[in-house]
């Protein structure tokens, strides 16, 4: 520090110490987050307490109470865990069935021009039809049992799975193929060493979209007709005009959707740790 000793006499050191600043404190990210959540709950509570929506909004604590009550009390034959499992089970069956078929088909379509020429037009035909539009015909075909619900989930998850796998392969950087070719690799090496790994992130993005679509679909199916599941709780809450039940169902389904998407994210981190992530998103 010999070089700085001369100048040190003239520079006021205390100026560089970060003083406690009120402005800094109130613009701190975590502080703002807490403010935001607290304000949200308080406003919700106030709106509910003042009956601005008459009796159609429950207070946050009432919702918690209701959910807690359901954990030990049977409602329509099963308790809270049973309802959660009923929906989750449908989502998992539909989601797994669809992704097992759709992802390989998408990859295959991108690799084979002829398969693509046959399947793509049919697929484009069905693509713009919202999965929920299938609810009525699913009930007509499969009745109101499990099968029709799983069917709708499959319809809803198939499209994004396939589309992302397909685009994932088509958008692989062509230079990467050259790397394999220059080393004397054949078509098989290209596919297994470049194509599949490079398309993984896109496939996972498709799985994420599918999953959120699956929750929407299961909800739609259960709202139309069911005897258990989280959608059933919401529907029953609607029919009997119990906002606590409706909000409880919404909280549950949000948590479930969030949880499963977290699982897929973890799986992706495990399977392709090399994936570039954009920071601060």
């Amino acid at each position: 520090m010999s070089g700085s000793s001369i100048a040190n006499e003239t520079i006021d050191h205390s100026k560089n110490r970060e003083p406690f600043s009120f402005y800094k404190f109130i613009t701190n990210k975590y502080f703002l987050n807490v403010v935001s959540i607290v304000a949200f709950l308080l406003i919700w509570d106030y709106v509910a307490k003042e009956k601005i929506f008459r009796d159609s909004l429950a207070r946050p604590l009432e919702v918690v109470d209701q959910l807690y009550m359901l954990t030990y009390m049977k409602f329509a034959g099963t308790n809270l865990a049973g309802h959660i499992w009923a929906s989750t089970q449908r989502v998992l069956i539909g989601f797994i069935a669809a992704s097992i078929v759709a992802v390989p088909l998408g990859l295959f379509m991108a690799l084979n021009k002829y398969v693509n020429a046959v399947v793509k037009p049919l697929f484009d035909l069905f693509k713009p039809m919202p999965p929920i539009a299938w609810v009525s015909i699913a009930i007509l075909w499969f009745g109101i049992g499990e099968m029709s619900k799983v069917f709708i989930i499959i319809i809803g998850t198939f499209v994004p799975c396939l589309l992302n796998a397909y685009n994932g392969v088509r958008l692989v950087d062509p230079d990467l193929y050259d790397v394999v070719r220059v080393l004397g690799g054949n078509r098989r090496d290209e596919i297994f060493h470049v194509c599949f790994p490079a398309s993984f992130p896109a496939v996972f993005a498709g799985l994420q979209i599918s999953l959120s679509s699956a929750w929407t679909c299961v909800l739609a199916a259960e709202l139309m007709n069911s005897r258990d599941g989280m959608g059933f709780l919401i529907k029953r809450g609607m029919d009997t005009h119990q906002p606590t039940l409706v909000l409880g169902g919404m909280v549950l389904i949000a948590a479930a959707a969030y949880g499963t998407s977290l699982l897929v994210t973890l799986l992706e981190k495990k399977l392709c740790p090399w994936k570039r992530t954009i920071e601060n998103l």
Partner: protein
Amino acid sequence: MDEKQTRNKVEVRNLTKRFGDLTVLDGINFNIKEGELLAIVGPTGCGKTTFLNTLSKLMPTTEGNIYINGEEADPKKHNLAYVFQEPTCLPWRTVRENVAYGMEVKGVGKEEREARATKIMDLVGLTSCADLYPNQVSASMMQRIAVSRAFAVNPDLLLMDEPYGQLDVKLRFYLEDELVNIWRKLNSTVLFVTHNIEEAVYVAERILVLTNKPTKIKAEIPVDLPRPRDLLNPKFIELRKEVTELIRWW
């Protein structure tokens, strides 16, 4: 040299930057005279970018300060300009609008802006592509746009961070000549950071050699060769060797 030339335009006093325990810049002191082209060279990873970022006030300093005309430097008050290593053209503006961008931020009037942009673009030969978008011109053009934009604001201090590092040798010499040319015409104060010793000797009036981290100034070498400079002049080669030796001996 006249009186104006010898006045200190920029004074850097005890510039220190620490990231936690790591001292990157350690009490750097130097001056830049008005209208001087000062080159800074140093070994790889000596914190050149940190150095420039603190000088341009993008990053707060831990200790010390930068004074322009005797006042603390402030991008809102002083005309600072920074030419980055990578092209920084705004893709949604034409070349002319890009050149005028710096002046726009400074609040220069529209007519004045047009006039200065036209003048600068003439100097660097951008007139022919003034109405193209940046993705329609070549990489060297992009860097020229950035240089023109910087000179157009009549900067009190122009910082350049290896602006020609990514160009090939021939283009680089051409653009260096161009830089020297504009600089002499506009009499700006320029701080040119580079890792290319030949480049530094070619363009600069004076060279500061930096040490490895924690970075200090190791030596100061005035370059009083006549312009245009000749790369094969024995004096030039000697200077180049001198700087090279200094960098090798960290």
